[in-house]
């Protein structure tokens, strides 16, 4: 069989088709080999260079930020979790506080009732058994030595605890 296709010939056989394909590939290869020449990169425009550089920098930056954010995210999650735990504790403590206050008042009431029924030596406070002390004159500190000798400030009047 000749290499060239005859005009009226059409390969009707698989082998013919394969042969024809191989021939065409060989032809192209020979053609390409004949035209091989060094590929010279055209000079890149400045904006493109800048963009590529920007891409490199931003990629590195992104990686860095992601790397830094991961522990931050972990820390955030942990904090949130801890907050939840602490909040539950707060709720629990508030509940206990209310319970304790109510119990304390009930106990006080019981003690007072008991003392009324069976005084067991307890006496009611009356002026006769009370010691009245005259109010001390207010001393104005004049020197630093006075300040040092001053007793600690009295505790503020206890305010009622809220429930």
């Amino acid at each position: 069989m000749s290499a060239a296709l005859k005009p009226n010939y059409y390969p009707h056989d698989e082998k013919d088709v394969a042969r024809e394909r191989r021939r065409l590939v060989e032809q192209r290869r020979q053609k390409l080999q004949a035209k091989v020449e060094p590929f010279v990169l055209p000079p890149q425009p400045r904006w493109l260079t800048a963009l590529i550089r920007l891409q490199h920098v931003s990629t590195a930056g992104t990686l860095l930020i992601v790397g830094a954010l991961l522990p931050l995210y972990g820390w955030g999650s942990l904090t949130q979790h801890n907050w939840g735990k602490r909040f539950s504790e707060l709720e629990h403590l508030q509940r206990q506080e209310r319970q304790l206050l109510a119990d304390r008042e009930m106990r006080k009431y019981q003690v007072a009732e008991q003392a009324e029924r069976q005084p067991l030596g307890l006496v009611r406070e009356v002026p006769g058994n009370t010691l009245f002390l005259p109010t001390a004159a207010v001393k104005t500190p004049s020197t630093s030595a006075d300040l040092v000798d001053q007793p600690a400030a009295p505790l503020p009047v206890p305010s009622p605890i809220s429930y």
Partner: protein
Amino acid sequence: MASTTPRPSSPPPSRAAIARRRRFVQTRAAEARPSQFRSRLLVLAVLLLLGQIGLLARLFYLQVRQSDKLRLSAQRHQLIPLPPQIARYPIVDRNGDLLAVDKPAFTLFAHPMLFKQPLTTVAEQLSPLVNKSVAELEKELRSGPSGIPLVYELSEETASRIRGLYLDGLELVREWQRVYPQAELTSGIVGYVDREHKGQAGLEFSQEKLLQVPAKERQFSGDGDGFLLPDLAPTNPIDPASTFTLRLTIDTRLQRVARTALRQQLKKFNALRGAAIVMDARDGSLLALAAEPSFNPQEYYKADPSLFRNWAVADLYEPGSTFKPVNTAIALQAGVVQPTSTLYDEGRISVGGWPIQNNDFSSRGGRGTLTLAEVLGYSSNVAMVHMMSRLPASQYYTFLKQLGVGEKTGSDLAFETPGQFKPKEQFVNYPIEPATTAFGQGFSVTPIQMVQMLGTMANGGRLVTPHVIAGLFDRDNQKVKSLPLPPPRQVFSPTVSRQVLNMMGYVVTDGTGKAAQIPGYRLGGKTGTAQKAKGGIYINARITSFVGIFPLDAPRYVLLAVVDEPKGDDAYGSTVALPIVKAVTESLITIAGIPPSHPKELERSSP
């Protein structure tokens, strides 16, 4: 393939077949042409565009049309609602001692039809937690398929332990329980709430609106394990409004002393009931308001319903002689008598055909000429009638109306009743009316109103409103809300009020109130023993009372004790009510830290 592919030995294809094959190859080659690509791209672009439009439409549908529904649905999964910590504000006394506080309580319901474990297993697991025997629980659980109330008023701890059993078919319904640590001591003031947590008596009833904590369910975001996350939490996780307290002006210590002294006297004289009140006359704040008998608010269902109304506020009585200082002040203010005036006491007189006599007429007869102080000191009815007869009846009536006789005081206490007073026409036209009013009979007031009127002697003549609520306070002790009270009214001049007070001092030093003397101190007082009226007729029963104003040199506190129907021949204001006021005054001295005005007397009296 083999069957369709012609073998080499087969006859060559026809021309038509070759032409067909060529057209096929040409067509395939043409597909690669740019024009064909363009149409394909167009189709693709249109498809993509349609896809994008579809996505946008879906986005719009989800984000705009369905957003509310979806947001709610998401919140149901992400948000954990926290129930409010209290439903009503706690009530505390002036020192912060608890009088009433909310406690969450749970009711355990069982729905046996939903049980996934045998009924016996459920009963066995519940038994130790609810303090009921297994047999008992089983019996209850078999009583119906659903909605069986097993236990009421379970504590938070027990509820959470039951929840920890993870048993299907059990339901814990959150409710509130009101705890009254002071029990009977302050029930007359505070009142009680019923099972539905609604106030039914006392401040719980009258201040229902003020006591309600604004229902604000706290929503927190939570993770899959049910842990709360701070995303939606407010900066301050404690809602400030839920930490307010309703503070009263009552001092529980003084209240206890008043109640104890009152109960002792009620028992001693087998009396029907009694009340002891202490008011700071500067502003009308009440330090004690004890009324006996009382009820336990924790077990209100066991109490006599008539006790829910504090009779010191809700019931009327004829004040009797304790009203004489008020009348004296009216006469002095009107200028019909002077502090140095004298009045003649015949012992018995007749007014409009009605006999009026002194209490001690049978034993002492007429006392002759008396100074104003002596009139009060001996509690002379006849001299009082003479004094008030100098004032035209219509003017007298106007004065009494100015004092609020026949009206309510405007106090913040529950169930306050207005006093009873005759119509002006009757008062002016019948001489017996002003005559009986002169010694405190023929009209009625509540004990609380009596304290209000006598308070004018202790604060320079101002009529202040007795009240128990200091206000709503926050955690930092700052007042958040106070109740509006009627402003004080000047009814007597400070001079007149001081003059009457000095006369009341005479009552204690030289008159019927001698037993009230406290070494080292001076106080003013007035006894009262009034005949009780029933159905418009005076009966053989008394109401005894004593009012004290303390300290005499710097008057501030008004103390009133009223005892209804004490039995015995020696049941008078000076014997029944006076010891109560004295005991309370003694405690007031130590609680308020009032130094003695005459310290030497204390030195003499101490062993």
